[in-house]
């Protein structure tokens, strides 16, 4: 299958290794990956901060960038949920009905990575090897908006060498919430502290999830504490093999000199 990869603005700009891992994984599974060069953002940050009118041209750019794609895959539950639940809505609200229809049609062909692997490709064992103790945080939008359920866990269980440990209080929000992390920085940090306490209680070396935004948040907190536990996106774990542990993956805790 020819798969168009939507890197998402955050992954593309801040943690490009996650998009790379997604591409590597899909190619390894025998699919052709295309990366539309004019892609930017899904518009979620604008919509969720109240700038729904301003989000309309962003949605238009996204729809133009992926026009004609057979299937679009993104390594983010949150962005895919926004594409499903918000893009057409904001376009329609602004009276852009043609754009809304196109966005809705495109959303029908857009998948979060674990959903694409399990539901569309029908695989749970992607042939990955990752010899680490890992705990999984089911990010809120993957859990409640997309209902990815235990697909990521099924994928992780099939990874050779991986020791999966259950995360206590897994379903509590990590406190990221987009601009919430800045507008309500104190409350966000209080939520993060409890999430980190749970992550650390597992003794896992790696906390994984399907959303880089939440991982940058949790990972940023763990790094600030100089904890030895790091965050790694699900795509990076699934892309790893005996021959090729993703080269760009951070394997050291971020400790300043």
């Amino acid at each position, binding site marked *: 299958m020819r798969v168009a990869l939507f*890197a998402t*603005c955050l992954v*593309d*700009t*801040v*943690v*490009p290794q996650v*998009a*790379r891992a997604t*591409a590597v994984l899909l190619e390894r599974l025998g699919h052709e990956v295309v*990366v539309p*060069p*004019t*892609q*930017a*953002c899904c*518009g979620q940050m*604008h919509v*969720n*901060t*109240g*700038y*729904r*009118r*301003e989000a*309309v*041209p*962003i949605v*238009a*750019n996204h729809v133009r*960038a992926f026009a004609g794609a057979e299937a679009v895959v993104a390594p983010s539950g949150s962005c895919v949920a926004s594409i499903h639940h918000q893009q057409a809505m904001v376009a329609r*609200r*602004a*009276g852009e009905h043609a754009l809304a229809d196109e966005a809705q049609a495109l959303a029908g062909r857009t998948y979060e990575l674990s959903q694409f692997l399990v539901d569309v490709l029908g695989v749970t064992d992607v042939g990955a090897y990752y010899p680490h103790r890992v705990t999984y945080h089911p990010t*809120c939008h993957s859990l*409640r908006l997309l209902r990815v359920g235990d697909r990521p866990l099924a994928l992780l269980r099939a990874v050779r060498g991986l020791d999966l440990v259950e995360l206590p209080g897994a379903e509590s*929000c990590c*406190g990221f919430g*987009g*601009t*919430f*992390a800045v*507008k*309500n*920085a*104190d*409350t*966000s*940090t*209080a*939520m993060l502290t409890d999430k980190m306490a749970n992550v650390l209680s597992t003794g896992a070396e790696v906390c994984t999830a399907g959303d880089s935004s939440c991982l*940058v*948040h949790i*990972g*940023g*907190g763990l*790094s*600030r504490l100089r904890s030895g536990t790091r965050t790694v996106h699900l795509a990076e774990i699934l892309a790893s093999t005996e021959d090729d542990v993703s080269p760009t993956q951070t394997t050291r805790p*971020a400790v*300043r000199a």
Partner: protein
Amino acid sequence: MTTTPQDSRAEPTPLAPGAPRSGTTFLGLPTAPRGVGHLRGTQSFPDAARTALRDGQLRANLGRATTTIRGKRAAVVAEVPHWEQLRQAGKALKAATMARLDEHLEELERQVTARGGTVHWARDATEANRIVTGLVQATGSREVVKVKSMATQEIGLNEALEAAGIEAIETDLAELIVQLGEDSPSHILVPAIHKNRSEIREIFRRTIPGVDPGLTDDPRRLAMAARTHLRERFLRARVAVSGANFAVAETGTLSVVESEGNGRMCLTLPQTLITVMGIEKVVPRWEDLGVFLQLLPRSSTGERMNPYTSTWAGVTPGDGPQEFHLVLLDNGRTAVLADEVGREALHCIRCSACLNVCPVYERTGGHAYGSVYPGPIGAVLSPQLTGVEDNASLPYASSLCGACYDVCPVAIDIPSILVHLRGEHVEAQTRPTAEAVAFRGLARVMSNPRLWHLAQRAAGLGRFLARGKPTLPAALPPPASAWTRSRDLPTPPRKSFVQQWTEEHRQ
């Protein structure tokens, strides 16, 4: 709802012709007035939360209480095989009722009147307080006993009565604790949820005249102390004030759902009963209660059935109150109804399940919201009742995790309303804020691939700030500092993924 906007505000981004516009901003319907009642706080949510987060006792009390009740709710909801259908039925009933709210209210008025009650219409808090105060004064009584009620908390009735020299005695145990402690409620079901047993014992020992000085913090002993204190007041009370969980239009029946039986005492012993009810509490038919009385107890206290469900219609000669007044309260509700997205907030049956699962509420507690309606439902209801600009920080007091929507027994899509109200707030600004300038600029960049790639390159230059380290320095200027005070930011890469890939695949 379509509206013809007569609005002359400068619109930063013109809407396409024929675009639907939201109701509240344009219709000019009255919102809850300022200076009366408890819908507005004195601080923004982030400021109030900052203080609350440092209160270790509060955090411990709330954490314990919400965890317990979440577990109970989850267990009893899981027992009901058709919970989701029940929930959708509740939602559909509420939506249908709201669509013809005027008709149902008029029917309710007819039925209550036919059964010997008197119906009063109160436009807002001020009017409702005036009506109730007048009714109590007419009885000559200087005190009233109260059934726990959110509507009377919303309008600040106790203060209004006090100003008229009438003492209002709260009879719900938790509400009594709050009243005796000169505190304010922090939860819609358990107003004293922020207090633990030993704090309650301390309040009782300090405020209840003649209380046993050896009172312990055993819940039973505490309840007995409150009971002795209240019993005397029940027996001498001539007037009671209540709220209502439901009002059935076709039969003129009012209903109060409670756990302690104190409400039942208030509803049956006094001579005069005055019920203050938000207009959204009406349901068309008696049989509708069948749905809501299944949804409510499991969602609120985590019980299969609540201990006391009182229903009454008008007055019954020789039995119970001989005078019954129903005050129908608007106080901004019509304005909420006019907003096609926000109106769903009126479906709320005040079960408090959304508060109990909310990770923000669990940590900040209810007082941080500045309104008698805290938590997720408060964050969408208070700003709509007062007008968004009077409570502009509340729609942002959520990480949009969606836990509230999942537990809501009438499936109110609270996250979507929060996002909608953020939009209403942004669009209500007449002058561009720094944030708006930034977001508009970013929107221009994110909708133009060439500018976007330039911006990404510029962001990549941020790596020089890190001077070879894996994270950026913690001391960055605002607004980045709000992030970096507690979280590291990874050093940005030299090239974006799309850029790298495009270069690799250029033939």
